[in-house]
Each structure stands twice: as structure tokens, then as C-alpha cells.
């Protein structure tokens, strides 16, 4: 089976929609077990491990993050945050057999109570075709003002 550029682009749109609609179990199922969600702290950071990042999470942590959102005693999520992605048409940068790389510019809005914040960001997805399905091998999200002082970012861009 081969994947077209349009299918890759649709995948990215679908993922953003899942996050906006809070369909987290579906979203987690997109991930390959060894995947990492990385959000660097420094502009053009190259090392996720020996340096602080905003996020560098494996599936255990992503799972925990999602589970926690629904917990009875998750005080900072009472009331819950909501998020909203506006994405530009993804660039498909690489198509090598079963491996693909896309780059997507987004405006991400998160809100809770009377506060709302807007983040401009670029998401790089490493995707793999496994048993006929596209899956996320890794995701890197670079926030344009990653070095600024932030308030809570509670959901996932």
C-alpha cells in the first residue's frame, strides 16, 4: 500500500481536530510505542535529553497527562481548559518508503476561565506506515517565543 501526499496532509488535520475535540484515546492510539512528544525550551535546541525542554514525553507520560485531565482531583482543570488549532496546509518534506516527515505552521489557542493565550508554532511530525495505518513516530513542536515566560500551558499543541 502506498500513501499519497493528500493522505499525509489529512492525517495532520485529523490529529489537530482530535486534540481540539478532546478525543484523547483516539489520539494516543495514533502513537507508536517508542514515540516522543518534544517541545524544546530553547530556539533551535538540538538536545532533548541533557538539557531542559518544555516537554519530552514518552507514551507513559502522555498517557498520564491524558488520564490526569479527567481526574476527580485535578484542581487546575476545574474548570477544564479548551484548545483550538488553526493550521496551515502541512508541507510534506520527506516521503521515503514507509517513513514520512511533515512540517506544519499553526496558531494554537488555549483558554480557561477568563484567560486565553495564543501560541504560534511549528510542528514536525515523523510518521510511519505500519500495517496499513499511519502512526506518529515522533512529534516536535517549536513555539515561536519558546524563550518567553509562560503561564500554564495545560493541553497539547
Amino acid at each position: 500500500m502506498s500513501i499519497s501526499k493528500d493522505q499525509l496532509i489529512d492525517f495532520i488535520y485529523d490529529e489537530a481536530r482530535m486534540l481540539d475535540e478532546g478525543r484523547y484515546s483516539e489520539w494516543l492510539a495514533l502513537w507508536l510505542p517508542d514515540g516522543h512528544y518534544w517541545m524544546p525550551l530553547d530556539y533551535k535546541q538540538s538536545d532533548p535529553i541533557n538539557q531542559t525542554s518544555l516537554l519530552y514525553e514518552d507514551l507513559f507520560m502522555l498517557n498520564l497527562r491524558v488520564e490526569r485531565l479527567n481526574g476527580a482531583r485535578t484542581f487546575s482543570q476545574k474548570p477544564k481548559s479548551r484548545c483550538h488549532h488553526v493550521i496551515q496546509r502541512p508541507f510534506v518534506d520527506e516521503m521515503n518508503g514507509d517513513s514520512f516527515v511533515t512540517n506544519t505552521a499553526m496558531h494554537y489557542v488555549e483558554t480557561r476561565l477568563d484567560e486565553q493565550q495564543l501560541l504560534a508554532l511549528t510542528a514536525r511530525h515523523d510518521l510511519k506506515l505500519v500495517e496499513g495505518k499511519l502512526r506518529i513516530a515522533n512529534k516536535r513542536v517549536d513555539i515561536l517565543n519558546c524563550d518567553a515566560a509562560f503561564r500554564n500551558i495545560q493541553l497539547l499543541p
Partner: protein
Amino acid sequence: MANYTGNPTAAAALVQPHQVHRDIYINQDIYALEMKHVFANSWVFVGHESQTPEKGDYFATQIGDQPVIQVRHKPDDIHVLYNRCPHKGTKIVIDRQGNTGKFFRCPYHAWSFKTDGCLLAIPLKKGYEGTGLEKTDSGKGMKAVGAVKNYRGFIFARLAEEGISFEDFFGDSLSSLDNMVDRSPEGRLEVVGQPLRYLHYCNWKMLVENQTDTCHPMVAHESSAGTAVKIYEDLDLPAGTPKPAAMEIIAPFMSPYEFFEDMGIRTWPNGHGHTGVHHSIHSDYSAIPGYVEAMSETYGEEKAKAILDENRHNTVYFPNIMIKGPIQQLRNFIPLAADKTIVESYIYRLVGAPDELTARTAMYNRMINAPTSIVGHDDLEMYERAQEGLHVNGIEWVNIQRLLEENEDFSEEAVLNGTTERQMRNQFDAWRKFMTYDSEKQEAAE
């Protein structure tokens, strides 16, 4: 509401042995007094020497509300200057770090200054001839802070020209900093990457107090730590499977009250203190191959063991930093207003130790203290709810009397049950002392 402007004595009356008045947290005039007296008379953390390793390297930060520059003037000489052109006030540097070469040059009218602040040159200087410029503050160059101390790589400054010495201010509390640095087989730390910067709409003291608040983790962090433990148990991994790294860091937050009672709290004079006298949430981290060997090589087995057996949890250095010796983390709670604080969380590398230690520290930092952290979110939520709740007029006092003893003497070191709020009381004792430092000095002179 009392009028506190220019009246530190009225401010000092807001501290009682078992409670403090809410104005301490919500009143902007109190904030102004804190900046003028508490922050000016204390020794405040500026940065680490490795942030400015080469001549001309600078780092811009704040001491309280005062913009300052840490700059390397000579290979072994770091200065701390106010970040203000003596001509008309323009900030000399605006980026957070960089290298200025041999001198600073103001971008407005090109007055230039040596990296120790001395005036170097003024264009068209003849315009000042005979005007007496050299007699003004403007003619003297960039102003330096009152005093600077480089303690094992950590730069502290006192804004006041005269006052308590570095040694008297910190006393035996330096043992925590020593332990953090001693954990490097070369006795040296190096800053790693950029600090996390997390903006809180609450008073800076709430964050400092929370560092030794041992009755909140199992409550406020149940949603993250409790859920982590539950997910892990549900995974039901076969015996011998390595634990997810997250578990090692996050699960100890769910330790029961007894764990925190037994860990102990120590307080030192001048508002310093630490949790984890006997053990801490950092005690059970897995060993990193090669590290103990490298330590023994330097210190000998016995001394290396003594250094590594010290597992202090959070050490608060009054007024506004916390360090975690066992993981080489420093958090700087920079007060921007009565209800606005920026928290900068730095990590350091143990020079000569395996990289895995840095990796674990970086993981701790992002997992617990990032704006994206599922642990930090709940702390922020509590502080900000308190900041709003304190406006209620029905109760004006904040209670800090857990395990209060009669006639507590904070000028004596003490080791107590780990759930005491004595360290919070100790901080307020120091707060009152430095708040009235100038007025007492004045009275003594009269």
C-alpha cells in the same frame, strides 16, 4: 488598610508568631518596601559564573525590582552593575546574555564604560568642560551594586553599600550549596541550557513558603503523582521490568504524611532552612554507573559516601531562591509586583560526572517545574486561588502555626518534625529583620 509608604515599622507589625497579615501578600506598598529594605539589605542570588565564562560575557537579570548585569571583567573577576546608562537611563543591555567585548557602549549617545562600570569615553566631551560633570553620579560611570560575592561559582549581591556580611548572612546554611557543588568529582558546576521561565500571578513569598510545605504534595499533586502510581500498577509489568523514568521522579510526591514528618526540617538564622534532614523524595534514585567511582577517586570512599548520603530536599535561601542539592537545581522566585512573580528554574551539570545525571535533572526540571508541567499546574492553581482569596475581608490573617512552639528563637539552628511550619515562620522573622534593618540602624545612630 494601613498606610505603609515609608513606614517599614508598620509593615513589620504584620508578622506575628503564629500568623501574618494578608497585606504582606496583596499590598503593592508592602512590595515597594520589600524591594527597598528586604531585597536591598539581603544577599540575593544573581547568577552562576558559568553563565559568563569569558571576559566581556554578560548576563542580564534582576535583584528584586532592580535590573542588573552580571559581567566578567577579568578572568577571575565578576562584577554586578545596575543596567542603566548614567546619562539618561537607557538600559545598557537588553538581551538576556551576550558578549560586550572590552567595554559597554550605550546605544543612545555612545557614552562608553569599562566592564567594571568606570566611565571610558563621552563623544564630544568638550561640551561638558567646566560644567562639573565629574562631580555628578552621571559622570562616574555605570553604578555597581553594594557588594558581590562569588561563592563556589554562585554569584550573590547585596545592593546596600553597607550591611551584613555574606558569611554572617548565610552562616552554616552554606552546607547545602557546598553539598551541591561537592557532588561534582571536580568540585565544579556548569549551568545547562536556558532556565524555564514560568509566570505566576501571585506573591513571590507564596512560592518560597511552598518549598518547605510538606503537607501539600499528597493533596495538591494527587492528580499527577497519584494517577502515575495507578497507571503503573494497572500496567502490571512482569517483575524485573525497569520502571518508567517518570515513576522514579513523580511517585515520591504521593508519599504519606509520615514520610514527610520523618524527613525533618532544619532552620538556620536569617530565614534559611531545608527539608529532608534524614531522607527525601530524592533518596531512592537509582545509581548511575561510574558516578560513585568517580566521586571516590576524588574524595576517597568515605567522604564520597558522606557527600552522596546527604539527600536534602529543598533548601531555601532567604529571600528568594531554592536549591535542590541532590539534583543540582536552583529556582529563582523573582518578584515583579505584589501579585506577579516570575520563576526561573535552572539546572547545572556536575563537571566530571556521567551525563545520565544531567539527563535525570533535566527530566525533573521539565516534569515538575515547566509551564507545561502537570505537577506545577496544580501548585500555580493553589497560589493564585490564595492570591484572590486573600481579598476576603472576613479573615485578614494567614495561619502558619503548625507545630508552633513557645518563644521560638530563630537565631538558633533547629531540627524538627518535617511537617512543621517553622521554616515559614523563620522566613518571616528574617523578613521583619531586614524590613526594619535601615530604620533600626538610623535609630541606633540617633
